[in-house]
């Protein structure tokens, strides 16, 4: 069954405490793995696209990596403004797209 699973569901960090979010997927014919950030009351905002195992992308305090079955979003020295829900989406077999349920990140000052 085609599936995208994110963990943990929620993560509470102190400011400056680095951690990682996980997105695991069971699909065939990967066409792209996407990370989005969603703030309350807003639509998802694009962060990264990854296409091949071994690929990495980085922006400010965020770094996304991809293996054949999962992706990690590493957050280095987070700040309170990084608090949001982080969503992973997988596009596969032509036009299919599935989103994970998201990880709610809370960063305390």
């Amino acid at each position: 069954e085609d599936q995208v699973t994110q963990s943990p569901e929620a993560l509470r960090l102190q400011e400056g405490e680095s951690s990682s979010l996980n997105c695991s997927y069971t699909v065939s014919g990967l066409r792209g793995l996407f990370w989005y950030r969603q703030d309350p009351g807003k639509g998802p905002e694009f962060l990264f696209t990854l296409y091949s195992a071994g690929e990495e992308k980085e922006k400010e305090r965020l770094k996304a990596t991809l293996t054949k079955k999962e992706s990690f979003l590493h957050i280095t020295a987070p700040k309170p403004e990084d608090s949001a829900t982080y969503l992973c989406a997988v596009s596969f077999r032509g036009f299919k797209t599935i989103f994970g349920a998201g990880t709610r990140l809370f960063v305390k000052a």
Partner: protein
Amino acid sequence: EAGVAQSPRYKIIEKRQSVAFWCNPISGHATLYWYQQILGQGPKLLIQFQNNGVVDDSQLPKDRFSAERLKGVDSTLKIQPAKLEDSAVYLCASSLDSGPGRRTEAFFGQGTRLTVV
């Protein structure tokens, strides 16, 4: 560059009534998506258009939901009749994708929050 525009932002209706949502994608984007996002869950794809044509509507409840994309640009999503479980945020998104190869990122609108009472 203007983003994806959606209206209305909020809508409250009674069950069994009908409702319509409108979306204007980013100019030049071939692909348009409608997603349903229930509180605490990730977005669920309802329908995907590539230009004028539907490429995926496998999760659209076709007995009550319908969607069209006018001249490959604007789109409307309709629910008739609405049920309590349709209460959710309806998100429209668009992307440059013009084929089934490598996919590119989607740009989302603010969404329409629907409450069915």
